[in-house]
């Protein structure tokens, strides 16, 4: 029985064809983010963690049957006696990580963002965050990085964890951020939730700013510009930088402020940039417009009486469709074309 409130998408649809005339396939789970023109780094998280673990003998790795899909298998192979396969049991994963932290270890626990944020939340809240234990939760498939539909699309994870006291929250843009953040979160004495890009991950930030280095808790201007300020996080910083290059060809100068640490938010830098007059301020995130970077920036600006013209680019407050990632990014406004189009419409 279908209730009146239930939405159905049963009617036959015409399958879209790609530029080569063939139907566009749903990106496989292991597919990397499309990032044309950038070099990639294979499994930056796994390799950075191995390197860090050689220096910090307290680091242990745990996963709930997703080591291979969170690049933790690199660590598991290099240091098998420091890896715990916890099985398909996310509540246990988080509780056991808490227990290991209580005994003085520095646990890195990986799964998909949906499973950490939704399924294991109470365990992260009470066993880890309430006690401020240094468990590092690193989760693949953030936001819209899979075409599998809502079961795998963590479009509200940042909103969920922002509400949790003690949490440090990171949405890295690329391989540079991931490799830079691993030693810094390893050294952080408290719980961390980080989104993860896995597989072949583009190297974006150092191409645009060769001396870029991830700094925990810091927002950094990657590119300056006098017309627009894009405040972005995660891979949307890559989209923002690509969009800014193309906007420049139309004589629109867009600055990009990259905010990889969502909590604690670098309020000082955000306010300093937003106070520069004459710029449209746009936030861009791979997350629902509810409860993510956009709303965090909006409340920061308003409570500090900074009121530029302001817009948010992000995912709509909906359960998203299944399909190929490029199609979905176009549909939901995360593609470079759509970023440019939206910004131009607000100028």
């Amino acid at each position, binding site marked *: 029985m279908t209730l009146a409130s239930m939405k159905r998408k049963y009617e036959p649809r015409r399958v879209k064809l790609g530029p080569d005339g063939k139907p566009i396939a749903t990106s496989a789970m292991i597919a990397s983010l499309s990032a044309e023109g950038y070099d990639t780094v294979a499994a930056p998280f796994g390799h950075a963690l191995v390197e860090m673990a050689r220096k910090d003998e307290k680091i242990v790795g745990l996963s709930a049957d997703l080591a291979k899909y969170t690049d933790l298998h690199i660590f598991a192979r290099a240091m098998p006696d420091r890896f715990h396969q916890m*099985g398909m049991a996310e509540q246990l994963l988080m509780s*056991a990580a808490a227990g290991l932290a209580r005994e003085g270890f520095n646990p890195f626990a990986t799964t998909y963002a949906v499973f950490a944020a939704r399924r294991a939340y109470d365990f992260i809240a*009470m066993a880890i965050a*309430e006690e401020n234990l240094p468990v590092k939760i690193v989760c693949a498939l953030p936001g819209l990085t899979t075409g599998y539909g809502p079961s795998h699309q963590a479009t509200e994870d940042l909103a969920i964890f922002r509400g949790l006291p003690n949490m440090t929250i990171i949405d890295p843009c690329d391989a540079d951020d991931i490799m830079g953040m691993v030693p810094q979160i390893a050294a952080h004495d408290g719980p961390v939730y980080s989104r993860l890009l896995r597989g072949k991950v583009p190297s974006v930030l150092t191409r645009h700013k060769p001396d870029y280095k991830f700094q925990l808790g810091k927002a950094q201007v990657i590119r300056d510009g006098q017309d627009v300020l894009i405040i972005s996080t995660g891979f949307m910083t890559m989209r923002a930088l690509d969009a800014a290059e193309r906007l420049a060809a139309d004589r629109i100068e867009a600055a990009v402020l990259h905010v990889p640490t969502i909590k604690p938010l670098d309020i000082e830098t955000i306010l300093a940039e937003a106070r520069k007059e004459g710029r449209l301020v746009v936030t861009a995130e791979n997350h629902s417009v509810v409860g993510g970077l956009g709303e965090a920036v909006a409340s920061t600006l308003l409570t500090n009486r900074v009121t530029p013209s302001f817009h948010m680019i992000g995912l709509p407050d909906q359960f998203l469709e299944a399909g190929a990632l490029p199609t979905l990014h176009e549909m939901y406004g995360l593609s470079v074309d759509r970023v440019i189009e939206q910004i131009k419409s607000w100028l």
Partner: protein
Amino acid sequence: MPAGRASAASNVSLELRAWNIRRKALLMGEVQGQGYIGQALGIADVLAASYFHALEYRAEDPEWEGRDRFLLSIGHYAIALYAVLMEAGILPEEEYETYGMDDSRMPMSGMASYTPGMEITGGSLGHGLGVAVGMALGLKRKQSPAFVYNLMSDGELGEGSTWEAVMSAVQWKLDNLICLVDFNNQQADGKPTDALAQGEEAKKWEAFGWHAQRVDGNDLEAVVAAFDAARETDHPGPRVIIFDTTMCKGVDFLESREITHFVRVEPDEWAKALAVLEKGKPL
């Protein structure tokens, strides 16, 4: 090296320890006019055997690295744990008057950050055993001989997370983990045996690969023997002791109250309960 179990040097009988725990819990209940006194009276014998027979700890140094870890998964049993922590000298006895008060170190539901000797923040049920698995893994990594004890309730047998941890403890052969289940057959809305605790509990755990015992949790001799067997078995994995206990044990007029998950005690009944207990004081 530790000097031996706390009980070794004491002339105080376990019966008297259990009685003292009951008395302290009643005094705290009287302070607040309420509390999970039924559970405290029911589990007093198990706690006496835990802290004065089984566990290694140093009262003056509750975070001593060599201690056996005792996790209270059931946060609302805090009143019982405070009583035994006082009896063990980990908490000063006179603090009972602050139980549940603003700024007290002894909140109504147990929290690690408030109370010396309280290893974890319990209360969200089904958490303790998973944390115990992580701690037992950590102790093995450190090659520590310490045990992890997790005290949980029969109601927690209904939480899926409990069974994730049950399976994991077997996977990692955690022979340093001893789970204590208080089976008083009272959860908030009724009997666990009318809800999710169907079937024979000890056999379930055994089927998963645990060394399982089920004993009368108010028979001190049986309780002590079960602790010894759990510690000394050569079973290559985790151990569970399911204790059948009677809510409000030791105070007959409360024992007979039918619904006792959160036992209602009238203001004048605390003194009466203490008087009843006094009559049963062991020699």
